[in-house]
């Protein structure tokens, strides 16, 4: 099987269409499962924390997605720029909207957590500030691309911004170790025993899986739209192959 074939929009378009239900349906199921585990199986309190802790399931998943999707967007934008691969650039454009949505969600849910826990909706703490910068990078990428009429030039300009902004992702990740911050440290680290009970951890991981599947599904749907919008004058679109 020649995988390179799928780097071309006419070949990828129908493949993506077939893939979407395989991500969208499990995503919907896993959101329900995560909600069930988070609210009916996990304990109502977590150690010294009261019931407000239930926010973490969606907060942590959203924050992780915001960072993952940014790195993925930068990689695709970089590939699209370096190898002149237009499908990869379209993928980066498609990823930017969902990534911005999750980053915004992590800030809002963090606020809902901060008010009852720390007594404030907002603090200029290292992690919160660097996450806000992540949101601005997404917004910058989206507005820069929409401000440039020529799609390939927009792709290149976006790629520069996305690649420079990648430096912010490790800053977010390590901010709780590098600076003495209001935001608590990592609860889950690779290679370490998580500081959570297993139903809570399970709820969080299932929520993360649901968010991943959701992201893949919406990014593919949007990518198909971007392909049609950009290639509307190409013969394969006009002939009804799409």
């Amino acid at each position, binding site marked *: 099987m020649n995988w390179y074939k799928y780097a071309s929009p006419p070949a990828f378009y129908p493949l993506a269409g077939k893939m979407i239900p395989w991500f969208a349906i499990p995503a919907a199921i896993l959101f329900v499962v995560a909600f069930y585990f988070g609210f009916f199986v996990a304990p109502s309190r977590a150690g010294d924390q009261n019931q407000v802790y239930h926010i973490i399931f969606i907060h942590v998943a959203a924050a992780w997605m915001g960072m993952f999707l940014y790195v993925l967007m930068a990689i695709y934008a970089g590939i699209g720029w370096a190898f002149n691969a237009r499908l990869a650039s379209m993928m980066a454009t498609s990823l930017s909207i969902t990534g911005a949505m999750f980053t*915004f969600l992590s800030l809002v849910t963090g606020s809902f957590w901060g008010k009852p826990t720390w007594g404030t909706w907002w603090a200029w703490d290292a992690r919160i500030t660097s996450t806000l910068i992540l949101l601005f990078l997404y917004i910058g990428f989206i507005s820069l691309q929409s401000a440039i009429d020529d799609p390939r030039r927009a792709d290149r300009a976006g790629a520069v911004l996305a690649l420079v902004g990648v430096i912010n992702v490790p800053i977010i990740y390590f901010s709780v170790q590098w600076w003495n911050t209001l935001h608590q440290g990592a609860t889950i680290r690779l290679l370490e025993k998580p500081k959570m009970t297993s139903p809570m951890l399970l709820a969080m991981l299932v929520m993360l899986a649901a968010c991943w599947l959701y992201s893949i599904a919406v990014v593919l749907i949007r990518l*198909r739209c971007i392909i049609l919008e950009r290639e509307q004058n190409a013969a394969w*679109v006009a002939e009804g192959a799409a």
Partner: protein
Amino acid sequence: MNWSEFFSMGGYGLYVWGSYFTALVLMGGEVVLLMRRRKSCKRFSRNQK
């Protein structure tokens, strides 16, 4: 289980449900906007599938 107790979340209902409601609105909104875009971009293709 008592449902009113469940919804009050020990007095933190506003924060907990506010968070999940925001998540629902943002993701649901993204899906709705995407379906609209899908409708408008499909006109470029003769194959309406």
